[in-house]
């Protein structure tokens, strides 16, 4: 029995690996974001620390870690300290089921997709508790917003996921990718034969993912120009740092799920390079799109945000669900 098969060792290895992946992604996605924002606004972005500002995230991390964490008087000290942990821990759980390639997956379980959504939904509670525990009026407004926003967007998101489930017939992420392996025309986003509205389903999923991860133009929970920093207003040092890492971890998870569900996972459109590189390329392209959208569109109004979900996304996702079931049922009737 090789030491890789010993269960506690595997779990420890997974936790270290997932933490390193999340940490590296959070640090360098901030760098990419600042560089991209610079380009979008015709300036250079970070340039001072290291070549092209590449060491800026390291400097930022050291700064955040050396800062004192202040628990404001009058706040709920226990909840205030727990909230950042509650953002980070479920995000780590989600990575366990994401298949990065045919062989790189921590746990290939049958309800993988459901598990990601289950642990992804805890994020709301953490941001809300953080905002509430701060006893700060901006933070409490943000907490109230984050709940109504997430409740509104969870519905169309899960409706699109149900549509995808009917197409795939399994909750196992590995299986879902296997079904799309034939080539790029077999990717779910292009399978117009099963559902002529498939690209629309993808757009609905992607929009909901942006809202669920509180990214601009839907970042009502943070809204710097209205709410200081929303739920994170009272957090300093690594308290804020962990929230920030959790936010980027959720973006990575959301884009990874979109890649698996719609873009054929590790499947390669042309044939060369091992699958894991294709997976990462698709995932980082989606992440770049998220950044791109943030620096292109202004923040929506809160009512506009809720109207978009209840009046447009939910009816459309219901329509795609019904349409898919009809399209799938018709051939079986004859």
């Amino acid at each position, binding site marked *: 029995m090789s030491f890789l098969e010993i269960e506690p060792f595997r779990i420890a290895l997974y936790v270290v690996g997932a933490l390193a992946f999340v940490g590296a992604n959070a640090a360098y996605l901030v760098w990419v974001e600042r560089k991209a924002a610079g380009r979008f606004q015709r300036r250079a972005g970070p340039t001072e620390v290291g070549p092209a500002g590449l060491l800026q995230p390291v400097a930022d991390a050291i700064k955040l870690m050396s800062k004192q964490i202040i628990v404001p008087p009058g706040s709920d000290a226990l909840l205030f300290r727990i909230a950042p942990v509650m953002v980070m821990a479920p995000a780590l759980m989600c990575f366990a089921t994401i298949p990065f390639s045919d062989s790189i997956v921590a746990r290939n379980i049958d309800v993988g997709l459901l598990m990601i959504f289950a642990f992804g*939904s805890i994020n709301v509670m953490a941001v*809300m508790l953080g905002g509430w525990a701060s006893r700060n009026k901006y933070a409490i407004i943000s907490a109230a917003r984050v709940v109504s926003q*997430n*409740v509104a967007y969870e519905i169309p998101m899960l409706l699109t996921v149900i549509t995808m489930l009917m197409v795939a017939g399994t909750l196992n992420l590995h299986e879902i990718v296997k079904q799309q392996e034939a080539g790029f025309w077999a990717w779910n986003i292009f399978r117009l034969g099963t559902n002529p509205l498939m690209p629309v389903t993808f757009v609905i999923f992607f929009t909901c993912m942006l809202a669920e991860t509180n990214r601009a133009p839907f970042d009502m929970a943070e809204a710097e120009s209205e709410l200081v920093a929303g739920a994170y207003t009272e957090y300093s040092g690594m308290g804020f740092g962990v929230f920030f890492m959790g936010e980027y971890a959720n973006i990575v998870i959301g884009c990874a799920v979109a890649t698996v569900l719609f873009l054929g996972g590790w499947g390669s459109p042309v044939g060369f390079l091992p699958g894991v590189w294709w997976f990462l390329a698709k995932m980082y392209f989606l992440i770049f799109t998220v950044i791109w959208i943030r620096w292109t569109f202004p923040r929506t109004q809160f009512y506009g945000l809720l109207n978009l979900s209840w009046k447009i996304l939910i009816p459309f996702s219901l329509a795609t669900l019904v349409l898919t079931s009809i399209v799938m049922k018709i051939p079986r009737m004859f």
Partner: protein
Amino acid sequence: MGETFLEWAVFWTLAAGAVASALMVVAGRSPVTCALSLACSMIFGAGLMVQMRAYFIAAIQVLVYAGAVIVLFLFIVMLMDLKAEAMRRRGGVALLAGLAVCGPLALAGWRAMAPLSGGGGPPPAPPDEVQHIGRLLFTDYVLPLEITGVLLLVAMVGAVLLCRPGGAGDQEGRP
């Protein structure tokens, strides 16, 4: 020894966590802590279900209860007057009443479970667990499922009726 010991350790950690957080739900001072403990209890329970290899039920429990129901609980609790709630003292009478209700319930639960213990755990869930549950829900259990749906709809309509301006629950708009 290795595998069994690990299972044993995980079981007792999860069970102790579930019981401790369930106790916190009733003993906690701040209603927010209580609601959070309820979520913790649900998550520990989900862990126990994973140990029984009922992955679907575990994921649904976390998704529906910890992710949606408790979030709405917390949302409502945030709107309450927490100072008054936290100051309220629970006397010996409340403790006695609680014990009087919980004691027989615990006894009944123990009596119901006793014949099942020692059987080496529940049978493993079938490999196509999700399809299995789906088929059962839409064949044998379709009536209970529909009744639950109608109940939720009635509750929702009732809530809308109470909260609309001029409704029974609207203090300002009342003549």
